[in-house]
């Protein structure tokens, strides 16, 4: 299991890093979302992995998983949710203002109607 989780963290980090390095705001935001999955799992894994020992106090429980990383991850999830909401709106707002969603100062996106992928058939 540890190998799977470590590899998952690696894959998520990789995807996140690759995406945040893109030239347009949308993939960059998706990249930050992936990074936040990665770091949440990572932070969680820092308490080591335990099966079926939820941190719910129960006299019969044979033991508990480490609850602290979970609390930290919860805080991190909430904060990253707030940040994601903000950056999404910021990207949107910037696009509306400038007509470009480029992040490297390059020429704007080719004009395109909203819903281009709606009108499209199999994508």
């Amino acid at each position, binding site marked *: 299991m540890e190998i799977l989780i470590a590899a998952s963290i690696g894959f998520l980090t990789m995807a996140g890093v690759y995406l945040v390095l893109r030239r347009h705001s949308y993939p960059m935001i998706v990249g930050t979302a992936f990074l936040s999955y990665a770091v949440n799992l990572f932070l969680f894994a820092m308490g080591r992995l335990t099966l*079926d020992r*939820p941190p*719910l106090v129960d006299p019969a429980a044979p033991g508990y998983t480490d609850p602290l990383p979970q609390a930290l991850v919860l805080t991190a999830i909430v904060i990253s949710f707030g940040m994601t909401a903000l950056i999404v709106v910021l990207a949107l707002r910037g696009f509306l203002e400038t007509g470009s969603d480029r992040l490297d100062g390059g020429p704007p996106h080719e004009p395109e109607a*909203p*819903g281009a*992928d*709606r009108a499209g*058939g*199999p*994508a």
Partner: protein
Amino acid sequence: MIETACMIAIVAISAAALLNLYRLAAGPDVLDRVLALDTLVINAIALVVVAGIWFASPVYFEAGLLFAMVGFLSTVAFCKYLLRGNVIE
């Protein structure tokens, strides 16, 4: 016996999830993928319920409940987006 059944179920659900993944990969339309994701959530709910039975643990229930709620909503949101562009209008 229940344990065996659970094991069988879990293997079956895993297989089902693999089939969902196949549909996700194959598409061809984004709607096929939305449908595949929706089905994946359904399978996740089943997995959670079976795990609850297997471990005789009540902590899985709420997850199943919330999966049911949000799986619906995200599928609807995707469809609404494809139908109208604006999810909230």
